[in-house]
């Protein structure tokens, strides 16, 4: 089970945090601080896995963003790397060549996509097509509402 996922920039700014275990806020901040420092200090060719407290950390850098997951001792590190990759692919497909700015300005979307991929720290849907379909149907509902709103505003409804 994944315990949490953090996205942060090369400057150490947190861009997204998702916690699958209940930690007190103070602990969350402490964990984040420690991990960001640890990972930013690592060199590019180093191993993507590290032992940390009683869990394992799996991380990977995509352009200016670090994706970092904590998993349990028995979980599969390599496949966790691929969960990260699948998430990146989904973001990329949705935003069209995603960049850090997309995630900053549309953080809520980043969350919605993540919720379609993982629930309670376990992978829910591995098919890229199916996740995108789910997100698309959410967007469709929103767009309908938006159109409806506009029509109402101009007195057509």
């Amino acid at each position, binding site marked *: 089970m994944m315990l949490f996922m953090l996205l942060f920039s090369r400057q150490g700014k*947190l*861009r*997204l*945090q998702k916690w699958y275990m*209940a930690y007190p*806020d103070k602990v969350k901040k402490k964990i984040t601080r420690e991990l960001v420092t640890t990972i930013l200090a690592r*060199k590019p*060719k*180093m*191993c*993507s*896995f590290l*032992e940390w*407290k*009683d*869990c394992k950390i799996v991380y990977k850098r995509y352009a200016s963003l670090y994706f970092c997951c904590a998993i349990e*001792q*028995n979980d*599969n*590190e*390599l*496949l966790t*790397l*691929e969960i990260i990759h699948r998430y990146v692919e989904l973001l990329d497909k*949705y*935003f*069209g*060549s995603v*960049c850090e*700015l*997309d995630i*900053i*300005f*549309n*953080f*809520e*979307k980043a*969350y*919605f996509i993540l*919720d379609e991929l993982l*629930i*309670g720290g*376990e*992978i*829910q*849907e*591995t*098919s890229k*097509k*199916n996740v995108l379909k*789910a997100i698309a*149907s*959410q*967007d469709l*509902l*929103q*767009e309908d*509402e*938006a159109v409806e*709103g506009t029509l109402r505003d101009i007195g057509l409804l």
Partner: protein
Amino acid sequence: MAPVRGDGMRGLAVFISDIRNCKSKEAEVKRINKELANIRSKFKGDKTLDGYQKKKYVCKLLFIFLLGHDIDFGHMEAVNLLSSNKYSEKQIGYLFISVLVNTNSDLIRLIIQSIKNDLQSRNPVHVNLALQCIANIGSRDMAESFSNEIPKLLVSGDTMDVVKQSAALCLLRLFRSSPDIIPGGEWTSRIIHLLNDQHMGVVTAATSLIDALVKRNPDEYKGCVNLAVSRLSRIVTASYTDLQDYTYYFVPAPWLSVKLLRLLQNYNPVTEEAGVRARLNETLETILNKAQEPPKSKKVQHSNAKNAVLFEAINLIIHSDSEPNLLVRACNQLGQFLSNRETNLRYLALESMCHLATSEFSHEEVKKHQEVVILSMKMEKDVSVRQMAVDLLYAMCDRGNAEEIVQEMLNYLETADYSIREEMVLKVAILAEKYATDYTWYVDVILNLIRIAGDYVSEEVWYRVIQIVINREEVQGYAAKTVFEALQAPACHENMVKVGGYILGEFGNLIAGDSRSAPLVQFKLLHSKYHLCSPMTRALLLSTYIKFINLFPEIRTNIQDVFRQHSNLRSADAELQQRASEYLQLSIVASTDVLATVLEEMPSFPERESSILAVLKKKKPGRVPENEIRESKSPAPLSSVTQNNAHVNNSHSKLNNSNANTDLLGLSTPPSNNIGSGSNSNSTLIDVLGDMYSSNNNSSAVYNTKKFLFKNNGVLFENEMLQIGVKSEFRQNLGRLGLFYGNKTQVPLSNFNPVLQWSAEDALKLNVQMKAVEPTLEAGAQIQQLLTAECIEDYADAPTIEISFRYNGTQQKFSIKLPLSVNKFFEPTEMNAESFFARWKNLSGEQQRSQKVFKAAQPLDLAGARNKLMGFGMQLLDQVDPNPDNMVCAGIIHTQSQQVGCLMRLEPNKQAQMFRLTVRASKETVTREICDLLSDQF
């Protein structure tokens, strides 16, 4: 940046841009505060906000929170959004609730109501939103509210696949916080049969759920094995086009494969059915074969996914530990990875091999890779990989290669990273002890450790070498000679002085015949280090000197001179002064015979477990390091490995269960069980050094009930397996105690049985009732046990509870004193100076007074003493004693038969670092008991 689909919020984008344009942290904080004020006024204002505005502001709050600021309002507005009929508003409401969960009871009820409505929706998008929110919060409230709906959604025929997937994982999340949510009976088979579902996404999600259910109740879900094996077999043999979008970079369904392989690892043996077993082995072979095929893609995603499945298959092979052929193949495969280009693969291969090294079938196979592993230890760029190589060398070490591996580790230690040195020192010390056939080698190794990495050699390590030298006559002369030589070095580590001092004090006579190490030479050599050492080492050296007087009467006057020098103000340390004076007197007053008796050679230490291993385990909480070959789980041909000592020990301990924890070397056992009992037989070195310096005991178990004199709640006991917490409350002569037993291991503790030890006679004074507990303590679970206590008459000491259970087939037992000493029944009594001293004078009879003088803990801590007294139960009275440093207390002990008034005075003497404790009470037994409880506690 692509245009955002759905429905964007301009105000939010502007705000985010503003924040990004802030030049400084201060500017950012200012902008945020302004926005928070704005939102607050909008939320409080009279004008009702429409849904869009609410959504926008809630979203801004979320963004501010994600920047790391605390948000303490907006929850109500977010909850309002949940019931919006616009999806976009609802969704933001849910997001806010999920990220900023607040268990505020009023709101939770509203949230649950909204979720209920959305679960009923005919639109699967709404249902999923609700399920995701339940999973995100995952609290007991949620479990209680939805224990009916979610299991139904999961197995119902009408549920759409996407909803089923969410429901499975949602249920899993709730199951983790409230295991009783899963209905049993016919549901079991319906849940298991999800493994046969047409939809791969549903199977993937369901497998995670089933894995958790199996862990809790393996027998009930045993039916999943056959389904899992056949599903796995179908996936592995599928071509990558068969599974369409569930193929990931040419690897068919890697996530599902890994989950199924994990699921099967819950059973051992995986299956009893020969047919299923054959199919599984065939599947595992196919996975191993595929690893040899040329890659279908150069992308790292392809190799990662493929190898993820491979590593998980190897985990299953190791876990079953019954197929020599597969184990050897796995080992060869991992061997190839050891020289792979990818750091990740090398790391994982080393890790996996650590486990293979502990199987008797593959141990020899792993050893073939020793060269490469040693190279990894030396050459890898990443310290975590180097550390993994060290772990593997440790795991693959046996009698055959011990000398070589230990030597390589010693060589590497000189340049090793500081972060891994301490652990390496422990490992080298353990291996050297475990595989020593010639103890001169062992002594050399430990002395080398001290020389190379003295700062990282913990007390346990040097205590151990002394214990071993004392117990083995054949090595004593050699040890004396070697430490003597080591001490010649101009700069030698203080730990070397300690070992040298101790060994020469005991066995210096064995080398005294050689004029180069004549008594006076030995003494001068040691004393040349004296001034550079800490008080603790100096104290040890003083003891060595007095032993020298016994061993070498001819240098008596030289030594007496030194004692004389240090018996006065030259030693700022009171302990050293005292030692020097006492030793001096001893050497003057005692006859040769008396001296010889007092300073007789140390008796052998009882053979007991080395505490080093426990220290090592503690350092690696998640992963217990292993250097032990498991017994195979199926009958196997005798391999050369069976000669291995570790193996012999293992079967030895199986035969003799009552003694399971004391194997021959005392190295590979769980922490000792003789806690609290028979401590006399544990003659540790610490005794020799005087109590004042003994800070840590040799046992790895945290067992300190003394501190519970001063508090009622906390962790009572902890070792690798078990943690026991306590909560207690007392009123008048009644007390209630909750014990919380937490299983820290990955396996259930069975036959779990706490038994109260409190004699019938004692029970007439303190009546203790204990509720029974379940005999099985599940992995990672915690159970509570309630005790009630009634104080009938004052009593001494406190009841003990003896806890026994089985862990991994071995019986464990230890005793723990309960925090139920008589002071718990104190009622604090407030009084002024006049009445205090009036009562004090009244209680001046011989039987009403008790007094003790004791040395203060270093350094003397008055504030700490006051804190302790406040927790002790009596009233700490200020402005009563004319000397502000003195502490006086008053209290009444409530028993059923009577109330006993009690006064106490604690007087510190800062110069002497001592305390004088006086207790006066109307009853003699109380006076004595309170005095006993409190003495030596400050």
